[in-house]
Structure formats: C-alpha cells, structure tokens
C-alpha cells in the first residue's frame, strides 16, 4: 500500500508510511476488537448450552448476536467509579496497559502468508514477551485499587504468569528449533503440505509438548481452571473488583484478545498456521506464484484456516472453563513447576534428539523434513523478499536441513523490507 501511495498517488514517503501504518493498525485493532465481541457472545452462548440454558436470545435477533455490543454500550454508559484511596493515575493506566499488551502482540501475528502487521524475524519472541506485559496491567490494577481482594488477585496473577512463562517458553522453543527460525511466517510456512507436516505430528515429543503448551497458554491468559486472579468464589472478582464501566471492559477485551492470541500462536507453531489439513490450493494448482488474484485468494483461504484453528482453540478454553473446578494457588504452582516445566524440558530434549536421529523426517514424502522450505517464497538468506515483485518469482527450493545451514532472517533485512504490510493493499 505504501508503494501504491508513493508511486501512484505521489505522496511524500513519510506520509505514505504513516497512512499505511495507521490503516494496518486500525485493521488489526478492529479485527481483534470485533473478534473479542464475537467471542464474548460465543462464550455466553456456549456456556448457556453447556449449562442447559439458552443464553442471550433477543438482542439483535434470533441468537442474541448483538448482545455483546449492547453490553458494550451499557458499559460505556456506566458510572466510572474509583475507590477512595486508590492511586488514581495507576488505576486509570492499568486497563490500558493490559489492553495494549494484548493487542500489541497481534502486530507480529501472521494471519496468512504475508497477512501480517509487521513481519518480525523474532516474531515468536516478540509475541511471548509482549503478551507477558499484560501482567503489569493486572498488578497495577491490584495495587492501585486500594482493595485487599484486588491485591490478592494481582499477586496471584504475578506469581502464576511469571512461573508459567518458563514452560511456555520451552514449548515455544521447540517449533522454533524445528523451523530454525523465530519468524512466525517462516515457522508456519514450513508446515505447509498435508496434515502430517504440521509440527504437532512431527514427532511424539512435539505432540506431547503441544498439550503442555495448551496448559501453559490457558494458565498464562488466566482462564479456568487457572483463573485464580479473578476467582469469584474466593476473591470476589480479583484484580478487577473495583473496576466498572469501560475500564473493566478493557480488561475483558484484553482477556479475550489474549485468548485468541495464544490460540493463534498455537495454530502457527503447532497446527500448520494458515495451511489447511489438505493442501487444497496446491492440489488445484494455485500457489503464491500463480498470479495476483489467485495469490490473494489463496491467502484469504489461509487466513480463514488460521482463524478457524484459533477459534477452535478459544472454544476449547471455553469448554474447559465451563466444565472444571478451579485449582488452588499452590496446585497451580505445582502443576507448573513439578509437571509442566520438567515435561516441557524433557520433550524439548527429546525433540532435539529426534531431529538429530531423523533429520529428514520419518516417512519421506508424507512428513516433510523439518528444514525443508516451501518453494517460491524465499530468496537468499534474508528471506524477506516477499513483496509484490518477489511473489511471482521462480520457485527455488532450498532444503536447508540437507545443507545444514539454518535460514534465519537477519534483523536488517526485516527492517529494510517494510512493504510486508500488505493487509490493506
């Protein structure tokens, strides 16, 4: 889009970039905010169905699909309360920190090949790190609320999230190791092909570690059975006890945003990202190199794939939430330190050894070797020539596992090729 603005419209470069960035940001923000609304509605419907109720039925028509919007408007109209003795600035700041952290991580999340806010060569690291910032908002909220229950909630959250980052990090490292890259786009791209090339099915260790990742992800976004920070039967509402109206809804949005994010991350890391179980596009002869429209079409399907997988992940979390009781704080810590971390570490070592033993994959032809790279998208070690011009370039396969050279995009190249922001183009 920036190219278009500079070359065709003739805007100055800085303005073109600013407009591009704003459009991309607005798109991501709206997609995620809209997504949060849908998920809130879905959660209500699913919870209701699980509990033998109907859930919202009236607002907006048959299925009450406008319910979350109506709730949002209600929250806007609510009185904005701040408890006496609260630290005003921090109290006001906290929801936005949580919200920003959750949404910021979406920048690096690819929705399809090239459908990414900003392709980062340290995408995995960025997403996990930024997601971890969310806890600051929660701690601030608990501290600034001047309520003992809030403080309890935030201290729990702090302990829990910080602990779970360890096994979560270990789980995330395994696909990174298999792909030889921290770039989320690369990782997902290497899982293209049939279902069997997903990292989930790469070897038994990745299969196990995926479930460890699910556990840790649920814990790190504070969902049941790890929702200790807002345990309503113990801590009233935990860290957001004193929040009302829009500020409370920001926490809510952040929670749903994070839920979607960790699910999408799981999809990218383990479930083939935007690659469907059956490579329909490839079988039909469509690929990124076929032409602009087909190319766009394929990506749109990919985007749908990823959204579907992430949504399934979110639905899984909802299902778990409405089924299981809540753990106690010491049990949460035990689960993390005594089970998740050792298992993740062992699986990490196992996956590493597996890589060593079967560098080309177990069954040739069906499961792809980990290092093999999809044709046509990568040229040179920078690996970021995926702009408009490069898409149509000749396919060149670089089986990096065979040559043994890991392909890691360099930082400079990722900064240079800014025109990966193609969401709005």
């Amino acid at each position, binding site marked *: 889009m920036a190219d278009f603005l500079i070359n065709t419209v003739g805007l100055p470069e800085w303005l073109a970039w600013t407009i591009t960035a704003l459009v991309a940001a607005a798109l991501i923000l709206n997609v995620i905010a809209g997504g949060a609304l849908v998920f809130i509605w879905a959660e209500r419907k699913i919870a209701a169905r699980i509990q033998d109720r109907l859930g919202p039925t009236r607002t907006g028509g048959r299925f009450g699909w406008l319910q979350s919007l109506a709730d949002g408007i209600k929250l806007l109209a609510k009185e904005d309360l701040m408890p006496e003795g609260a630290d005003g600035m921090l109290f006001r700041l906290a929801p936005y920190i949580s919200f920003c952290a959750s949404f910021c991580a979406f920048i690096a999340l690819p929705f399809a090949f090239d459908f990414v806010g900003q392709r980062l060569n340290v995408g995995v690291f960025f997403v996990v790190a930024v997601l971890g910032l969310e806890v600051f908002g929660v701690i601030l909220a608990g501290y600034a609320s001047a309520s003992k229950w809030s403080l309890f909630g935030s201290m729990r959250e702090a302990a829990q999230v910080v602990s779970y980052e360890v096994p979560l990090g270990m789980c995330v490292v395994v696909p990174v190791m298999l792909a030889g890259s921290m770039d989320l786009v690369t990782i997902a791209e290497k899982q293209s092909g049939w279902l069997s090339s997903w990292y989930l099915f790469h070897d038994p260790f990745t299969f196990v570690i995926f479930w460890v990742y699910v556990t840790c992800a649920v814990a790190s976004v504070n969902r049941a059975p790890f929702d200790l920070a807002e345990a309503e*039967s113990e801590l009233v509402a935990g860290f957001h006890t004193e929040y009302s109206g829009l500020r409370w809804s920001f926490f809510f949005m952040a929670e749903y945003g994070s839920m979607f994010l960790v699910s999408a991350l799981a999809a990218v890391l383990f479930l083939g990202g935007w690659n469907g179980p059956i490579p329909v596009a490839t079988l039909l002869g469509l690929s990124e190199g076929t032409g602009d429209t087909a190319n766009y079409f394929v990506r749109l399907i990919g985007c749908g794939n990823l959204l579907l997988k992430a949504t399934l992940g979110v639905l899984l979390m909802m299902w778990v939430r409405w089924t299981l*009781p809540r753990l106690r704080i010491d*049990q949460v810590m035990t689960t993390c330190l005594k089970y998740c971390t050792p298992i993740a570490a062992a699986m990490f070592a196992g996956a590493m050894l597996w890589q060593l033993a079967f560098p080309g994959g177990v069954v040739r032809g069906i499961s792809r070797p980990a290092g093999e790279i999809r044709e046509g998208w990568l040229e040179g070690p920078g690996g970021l020539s995926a702009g408009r011009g490069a898409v149509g370039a000749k396919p060149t396969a670089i089986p990096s596992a065979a040559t043994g050279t890991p392909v890691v995009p360099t930082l400079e190249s990722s900064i240079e090729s800014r025109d990966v922001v193609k969401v709005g183009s």
Partner: protein
Amino acid sequence: MAQLIDDDPRIIEFDVRTDEMLVNMGPQHPSTHGVLRLVLRTDGEIVSEVEPHIGYLHRCAEKIGENLTARQWIPYTDRMDYLAAMNMNLGWSLAVEKLMQYQVSERARHLRVLIAEMGRIASHLVGMGAYGLDLGTFSPFLYAFREREKILDLFEEACGARLTYSYITVGGLTADLPPGWLRKCEDFLDQFEPIIKEYHALLTTNAIFVKRTANIGVMSPELAIEYGCSGPVLRGSGVDQDMRRDGESIYTAMYDGYAFEVAVMKNGHYPRDHQYPPVPADAVIGDCWHRFFVRMLEVVQSMDLVRQSIDRYSACKGPLGEPVKLTEKIPAGDAYLETECPKGQMGFYLVSDGSAIPWRVRARSSSFSNLAVTHELCRGCLIADVPAIVGSLDIVMGEIDR
C-alpha cells in the same frame, strides 16, 4: 514480639518481613452463602484465623413465635432453612404434636415422609451445586438447580408455593396430594436417578475437585461431637448418627417400617458403595470430600425412601385427617424435639402455659453449630480453602440467624 522481630539483626539485614492482613470476607461476598461475614487474618495466602460473624439475617423469629399460635408460626419456620422449608415445618409440627400428644393419621405419616425426603433431595441438590460454585465450577450448580426445579414444580402442585410451603403443619398436612402427583413424582425419580452418575463425573471423581477437597478441613469425630455438629457434617467425620434412626420415638415412629442405611463410613465402606466411584486415595475421613460424598449418598437414600413412601402412601386408604385448629390450645408443659433436617439436627423447643400461644419458643439450628467449627478447620489453610470448607458445611444463614 514485634519488638523482638525489630531487634533481630538478621531480619533487618534482609528487610523482608510480611505483615498480617485482616480481610473481611462478606457479608457481601459471592461465596458466603448469604450474609455470612468471615474475618480472615491472613499472612499472604495463608489464613491464620477465621472468625465468623453472624446476625445479618436476624428476624427475631423466636420472639415472633411467642406471639403467634403454633400453627401460625409455621410460615416463620419456612424462612429458617429456606432451602428445606418442608423439613423445618415438619420439625416444628412434630415438636408441637409431641407436647399435644397428637397422633397423625397413617396416610399423613407416609405423606410426610415423602415430602420431607423430597425436601432433603432439593436441599442437597443446592448444597451440592453451590459447593461446585465455591470451587469455581459453574455448570453443576445449574444442573442441580435444573433438577431442583422439578421438585419445586411438584411441591408447587401439592401446596401452591415454591419456596415457603407451610405444607406440613401441626396435626398433618394442609391438603392431600392432587391426583396424578405420585405418577409425576415417580417420573422425576426415574429421570433423576441415572443423572446422578453425571454429578459424580463432574464433581465427586473430578481430579481437580478431589485435589481441592480431599484432606482439606479434616474434622475428627471428637471435634465434630465437641462442637455439636450434626447431619452430613457429623456423618462425614464417620460418626454413625442419624435422628431418623436414633431420634426420639415420635420422630422415628414416622420412619417405622422404612428400610434405609445411614450414610456413614463404617469399616472403610459406605453403604452400597460398590455402586459409586471409589473413595479417592487422598481423601481422609472427615474432610470436605467425605462431607460432600455423604450428601451425594443421602440423595440416593432419600430417593429410595421416597419410593418406599409412595408405595405405602398409596396403600393407605384412610383419610388424611385435618390439621389442628389454628387456635388450638396447647397443653401446659414443654417439649423439645430434634429432627434430621438436610443440614443437620434441627431442634425446636416450646414451653406452653396452656393457651394457644406458646410461652417460649426456641429453635436450635444445626447450621449454627456446624458453622462454629469453621475457625478450627480453617486454621492454617489457604484462602482458597476457606470457601471450600465453609461450602462443605452447607450452611444456610436464614437458619443460623433465624
């Protein structure tokens, strides 16, 4: 002590010292079952002391009872344990009948058993569901309420009310069952029986549930007796006592000819425990899990009793009998009677000077004694265990404060 800590050079060196915090849990708190207020003294997540404060729901019910006739006070007993109002009605009616030496008809007796046991199922369903809620799972609560709703529908059909029935009254019951009621009741039992498995899957045997309840809030039989605990709380500690079997003759006569086994662990076994999931290895007799499990067993036991009473009730062809006059004079004297209510032994005491209005009325609440033990059970537990323990006692504030 504080001075000592301040002077301790090691502590000053590290400058890490935690303070105790006093937290109010309730009276407006989601898991205090009404308006209970617990003052927690905590050190971080660890609770060192719990002090229950009561009285937020006090309505002077006993004093009101001294200004009304015995039958007029029945609606006030409804509002004591509002989750098992039928059993409250029964307790007061029997106490008055004891003083009046009144014998209800055989038909009324079986109907009373039927209604009281249905009330027990309804009460235990709430206790069970709410306990799930205390542990953070919402769905079993609504499942339990779904089933309870059917019992309430049946009660509504029988007496017109859904919560405060005043159905069982001094001298019998206010009305006989409507035609077709027994059929519906049997349908409910047939439908409910297989569903109990689901509660066992969602709660009793759920790994997280077991983790949260097994070996938590362990109460020794001695402690339970010392504090006057009763009902499932007492039986959960392995004390074999049930007023329906061990009570006074006017009460046990009601259950004459009924076959039931008290739900208590004897020699490491619950009655008919082969039908139920095995007791988890971590569970210790007297912990929250056992208290919960006793309630689950009592639901099945009550269903059995209801089935028996349906047969007996339909076999009785005689009249139901009219309840006593509203202004019936009570003979001078006093009477105390404890009955086995879902929450425990509920005792009613009345002193009469020969007029229609009792001179003194007193209710002995089981929940009151059961709650009193909280501070013993909660010493040194985690904050998350406080709702787990209080929930396992299954208290109703309306009964405690009266």
